[in-house]
């Protein structure tokens, strides 16, 4: 919808990539009930834990990952084809909304790294069942090879999660600042730079496996470089708000919290990137705190912001603003109560991935648990608010729900009609930036279905 297209470029393939997921998840869940138990080697499934010492259910895990990978690849190819091929006439790449840009780059990352993950699990499959020795030094292979292949996928994967979040925030902050995004083109280049760097820094997850010093140094410096384009982005978001006519609706609150917390997580990331220091931090709660600040504050906060922001457009009803704000403040405070103490725990030496911990860590763990329950409560409130909006929300009929919102999705009726653009929208170049004219979508569409999200 943001590029003026009626649907994805390849709608049936889109449908297929969606329907694969329930089957893949069903396979994964079924492993829990199998003899020998479900896969018991954590999300990073390092060899030999996931090969030599794995339960039989690992095979189901492997094939589920295969079809999920196929789903991701098809979905991403579809996104790329849609963005490259279905933009409205006159919408050049540098006039696309930033959210679209971040998705284009995310999709590219997915197409590039999902096959590598498929390769990694295939190697596991062969090692487990067919006697190969990829991850077995006895045959001349190396368990560390698994970590290299895995993190070549795994590091871009975390950017796959965060880049769309950047896009969301880049849409919301200008709207509620009533100013265009500061430094649009530098945002695009920064996103591309982050994507490029994500391919060449994977081994900073493996500083303690015994790489040569040259390798440690290279991955340390390359990792630090990521701070540069990220800094550009943070600077642009803040400068967009500078001297803007700010209002603080719920999506904006979440976006500002995103900028603050993500920046904080970015700084602890810089601490971790120092190879010499990382040897102390490695696999402690400090790392846990770091990636929750970037991932939860990054992906979950911006996801929440996105839902509040586009919900009126999706269903034609307004959410309860007061409840939204209450949810925000609980979430923001609870998040910090949960994860801030984990920095102290980690620095004091509490390791990750143990069910138990020493007594000296008990106090901060209790604080953290209280925060976690509060945070969970905030999420329940969020769910309640969304459901209530759909069932009992105030109807909105303005095409432009938010006063300062720009972009194609705010020019069409609310809620958006099915297959929004039957004809491409027409662009007339005005004084400042592009101006779009959307012909009222013809009512001729015979389909009767719920409106699709753009």
């Amino acid at each position, binding site marked *: 919808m943001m590029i*003026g*297209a*009626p*649907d994805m*470029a*390849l*709608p*049936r393939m889109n*449908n*297929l990539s969606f*329907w*694969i997921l329930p*089957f*893949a998840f069903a*396979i994964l869940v*079924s492993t829990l009930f199998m003899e020998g138990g479900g896969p018991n080697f954590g999300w990073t499934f390092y060899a030999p834990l996931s090969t030599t010492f794995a339960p*039989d259910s690992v*095979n*189901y895990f492997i*094939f*589920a990952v*295969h*079809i999920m990978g196929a789903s991701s*690849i098809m979905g*991403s*190819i*579809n996104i790329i*084809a849609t963005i490259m*091929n*279905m*933009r*409205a*006439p006159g919408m050049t790449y540098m006039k696309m909304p930033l959210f679209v840009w971040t998705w284009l780059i995310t999709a590219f990352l997915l*197409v590039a790294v999902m*096959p*590598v993950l498929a*390769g990694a699990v295939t190697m596991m*499959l*062969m090692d*487990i069942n*067919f*006697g*190969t*020795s*990829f991850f*077995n*030094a*006895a*045959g*001349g292979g*190396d368990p*560390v*090879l698994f970590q290299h*292949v895995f993190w*070549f996928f795994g590091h871009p994967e975390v950017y796959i999660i965060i880049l769309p979040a950047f896009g969301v925030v880049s849409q919301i902050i200008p709207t509620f600042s009533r100013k265009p995004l500061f430094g649009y083109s530098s945002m695009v280049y920064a996103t591309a730079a982050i994507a490029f760097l994500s391919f060449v820094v994977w081994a900073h997850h493996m500083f303690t496996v015994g790489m*040569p010093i*040259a390798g440690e140094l290279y991955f340390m410096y390359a990792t630090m470089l990521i701070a540069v384009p990220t800094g550009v982005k943070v600077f642009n978001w803040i400068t967009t708000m500078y001297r803007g006519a700010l209002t603080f609706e719920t999506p904006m609150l979440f976006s500002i919290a995103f900028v603050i917390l993500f920046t904080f997580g970015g700084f602890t990331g810089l601490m971790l990137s120092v190879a010499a220091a990382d040897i102390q931090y490695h696999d402690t709660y400090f790392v846990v705190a770091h990636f929750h600040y970037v991932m939860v504050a990054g992906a979950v906060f911006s996801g929440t912001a996105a839902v509040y922001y586009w919900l009126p457009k999706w269903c034609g009803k307004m959410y309860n603003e007061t409840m939204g704000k209450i949810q925000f403040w609980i979430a923001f405070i609870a998040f910090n109560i949960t994860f801030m103490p984990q920095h102290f725990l980690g620095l004091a030496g509490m390791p990750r991935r143990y069910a138990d911990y020493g007594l000296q860590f008990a106090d901060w763990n209790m604080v953290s648990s209280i925060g976690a329950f509060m945070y969970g409560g905030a999420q329940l409130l969020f769910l309640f608010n969304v459901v209530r909006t759909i069932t009992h929300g105030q109807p909105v009929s303005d095409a432009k729900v938010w006063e300062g919102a720009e972009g194609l999705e705010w020019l069409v009726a609310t809620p958006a009609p099915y297959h929004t653009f*039957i*004809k*491409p929208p027409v662009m007339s170049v005005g004084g400042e930036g592009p101006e779009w004219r959307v012909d009222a979508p013809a009512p001729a569409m015979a389909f009767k279905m719920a409106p699709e999200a753009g």
Partner: protein
Amino acid sequence: MSSEGNYYVPEQSKLPIFCATAMGLMAFGAASWVIEGGDAKIFLVGLALMTVVMYKWWSLVIDENMQGLVSPQLKHSYVLGMLWFIFSEVMFFAAFFGALFYVRVLVNAWIGGEAAVALFDSTPTAAAAANNEILWPGYERQWPVMQTPDQAVNGDSAMFKGPDRSMSLPLWEYPVSQWLSKLYTLLPWLPLWNTVILLTSSFTVHLAHTGLKEGKRDVFLRYLGITVMLGFLFLCLQVAEYYEAYAHYGLTLKSGIYGTTFFMLTGFHGAHVTLGTAMLLIQFIRGLKGQFSSDDHFGFEAASWYWHFVDVVWLGLFLVVYIFG
């Protein structure tokens, strides 16, 4: 960018959910199959469903195209889809090539007690040597790995035993000065013939394409037919090569990292040749039915791109697995 006028959105279809069901069955079935004592029933059911779905799906797409429903914009989406799919395949092979280089250049040196690349690898030689002495004493850096670290330590009771012979260029057994007189040893060397076959087939598929564009149907069919036969011939030779490896070279999937990388790289390539041959065969049948015109033949074009991609991968394999294997 979109053209003027209305967008084309194909009508709704139930095929995707059947396709996903088939994939789910195949994944679950394959996992049940590889576990000891398992069987292939569920997998085969999935495969059968998948075959039906693929036939129906492509028939539908071809029908829609023949009716003139497919807009130039959608055709361009097909082009983009195929190109990015090939890119994802490139990355899949990259994982295996990467694994090969990592093991061959770095790991092999480290467990052999040496520094890998003197310029970059500052691991002190003493530390590397200790590494070797403690973990795999007696193992020496070598490629192809004919004697695994396991064998170096455990001798005949080793689980991983290296192969008796490798698939490398036969000339390496002789000093360079004798190469000219030993050229005949290349004659029974199958990889060389397979290279010739694949390169020729890439050329013939191009000739078929040119013929089609010029509207010469007979040229198109002749060269496409030859291409399919060359693809089939390649596969036959590869089967012969694998038989030779298992029966006479002691080279199997289980013979250490050399057997592992050799069979996984060439095996996945072979699987892709099989797929490519099948794709081209279908295009040949479609050609016989007269479904292509000189300006509308994307089905064939996509298959031929795939074929060229498979050919390029082979050249990489030929270089790093066979010649410098």
